[in-house]
């Protein structure tokens, strides 16, 4: 489904991704763990098509075609979704207006009919209920005044609403308490499907207790340094990055 081949990427001339290779097949859940500053968020942005990240080498294939030249919205239309580590606050745009605009933009791009207001509200209510998001939050401007946890729930809500095929979650677990973590994890598990894949970026084993990954990758300094099964996450939890020969920087 997603194939990342020897990816090199730079910001402001600094190379951050230094030859990252990763293959994700349909239906698989992959986890990436790595110390702060190893380039995890950079990877997520590059996958989503952020323009100020310059890909200097390598390629990204989605459904076997390179997406390198595609804009973020074109990638979204193909089914790529990024749950942001730091969701952006946008004053003046009501969340529900935004959600409907996004859903309809995706539907148009995929050649589907727009959803009518009533059907949209029903759909929105369904996912909001499952994620414990209140009506009041949906009326507020996008992420404005939301707590860290509320922002992460809203990301999870968008994921559920927009029904992507390739989900990238960048530290969705940070800022969530145990209950919220369980709710978000249940949401992911519910969405797991043979034609939907996940790339879950996290620092902590605890999310992976709820969402069982098929593969775990350890990332350091812009590369994947080791790949394996869920046991890697346990080893990391027990022994720290030192066990992988990685010197962990002070928390950024």
């Amino acid at each position, binding site marked *: 489904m997603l194939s990342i081949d020897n990816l090199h990427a730079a910001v402001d001339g600094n190379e951050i991704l230094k030859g990252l290779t990763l293959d994700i097949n349909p239906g698989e859940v992959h986890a990436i763990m790595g110390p702060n500053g190893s380039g995890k968020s950079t990877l997520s942005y590059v996958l989503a098509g952020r323009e100020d990240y310059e890909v200097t080498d390598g390629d990204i294939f989605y459904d076997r075609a390179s997406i390198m030249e595609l804009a*973020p*919205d074109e990638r*979204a239309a193909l089914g790529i*979704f990024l749950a942001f580590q730091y969701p952006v606050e*946008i*004053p*003046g745009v009501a969340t529900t207006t935004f959600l409907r*605009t996004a859903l309809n933009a995706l539907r148009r791009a995929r050649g589907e009919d727009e959803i009518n207001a009533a059907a949209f509200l029903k759909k929105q209510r369904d996912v909001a209920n499952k994620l414990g998001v209140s009506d009041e939050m949906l009326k507020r401007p996008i992420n404005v005044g939301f707590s860290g946890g509320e922002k992460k729930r809203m990301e999870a809500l968008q994921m559920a609403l*927009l029904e992507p095929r390739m989900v990238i979650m960048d530290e969705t677990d940070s800022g969530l308490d145990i209950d919220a973590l369980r709710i978000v994890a249940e949401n992911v598990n519910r969405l797991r499907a043979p034609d939907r894949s996940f790339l879950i970026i996290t620092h902590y084993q605890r999310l992976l207790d709820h969402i069982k990954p098929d593969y775990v990758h350890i990332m350091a300094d812009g590369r994947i340094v080791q790949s394996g099964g869920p046991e890697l996450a346990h080893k990391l939890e027990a022994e720290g990055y030192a066990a992988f020969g990685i010197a962990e920087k002070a928390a950024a």
Partner: protein
Amino acid sequence: MTALPSWLSDWRIEANENITRLGLPAKSESWKYTSLPAAWSVEKLRAKPGSGDAQKFRSQIKDAITLDFVDGKYIKGQLPKLPAGVIIAPLSQQLADNNERVRQSLGNSTPGKTRSLISLNLAEFTDGILIYVPHGVKLDQPVFMHSFGRKDSVNHLRVLVHLEADAEATLIQHHTSAENAVTNIVHEFDLGARSKFHHYRLQDDDQTATHLTFTETQLAEGSELDHFSLTLGARLSRHEITSYLNGEHAITNVNAAALLGGTQHADFTSVINHQSPHCLSRQTVKNVLGGKSRGVFQGKIHVHQIAQKTDGYQMNQALLLSPQAEINAKPELEIYADDVKCSHGATVGQLDDNAMFYLRSRGLSAELARALLIEAFLMDALQQISKEDIRDIFVESMQAKQSEISDAAGRA
């Protein structure tokens, strides 16, 4: 206008003398960033009809009292039966009847002796509106004025509003003039004690038109002006708005937004005269500037020595959509009282890259994301229009203009 009252003929002679003496506005402190085309003369700006068809237009406001003007003349309207004593009428008609109220209101607050465009308006106005609301009467129905100047027309209009104590009224103006039309409209508002006047202007003239506006408001004790201007049209426009807070606890809200593209130039110049204690002024002025457009905001708050406990606030924000767009902002606080609360702020920014990326990552095209962010930026100014059906008209026009600008940006 046929059969002018003799007093007006006399005033016009005087007005013409002023114009001759003053000439058209030249570079000055007040006309710092804006100038009329060098080739223009007073003679070119005398009232004249244009050519072509008049536009078909229908107000979208239910139950509004409507007055439609073409080339500066009242042509039709919907003037239902009004509460006793209320006058809402074309100025031409009132002058023909030689209504004493016109003479009382006209030129009351406009120091035309020093401003040639106001003198020119006095000498040339062909029509306008008189709104008079007696003591305690609150008009529920808004007055809706539509003005259309045909191609190459020069329109001089005068709008006189007099609210007696505790009265309330709403005036909405929608301008949609054609190519190269020139409009010079002067508003004089006289607000009695505790009266409340809502004034919403939507200037959506053709992109080649010129639009000059003066708004002068006298506010008695406890009265309130609630003003909002949305500028979308005209190649060159300038609105000079002055409030005189004459009685205690008067309130003036002078809010404006502009959405410009191409080579449009829009100047919003305000002067708030706090000349009585305990008055409040609020200003939010927003400019969204694309293409090579230029926005000008000059905002002066003048607090006289007597005006203790003045509460003045002014905010000017600009969003630049292109590197060639420009905002000139000149806030000016002139404070002679010592116990006052006055603040002003200004921001200039571009569309936020993070916000653009976030929206696009959810599937919104660049155009759609940009439109949403521009709308969000302007919305908080448009929220000042408290009545929803009126606000909708403004929002729709703004959105239409927004997509024009985006299309132009997309092609660039």
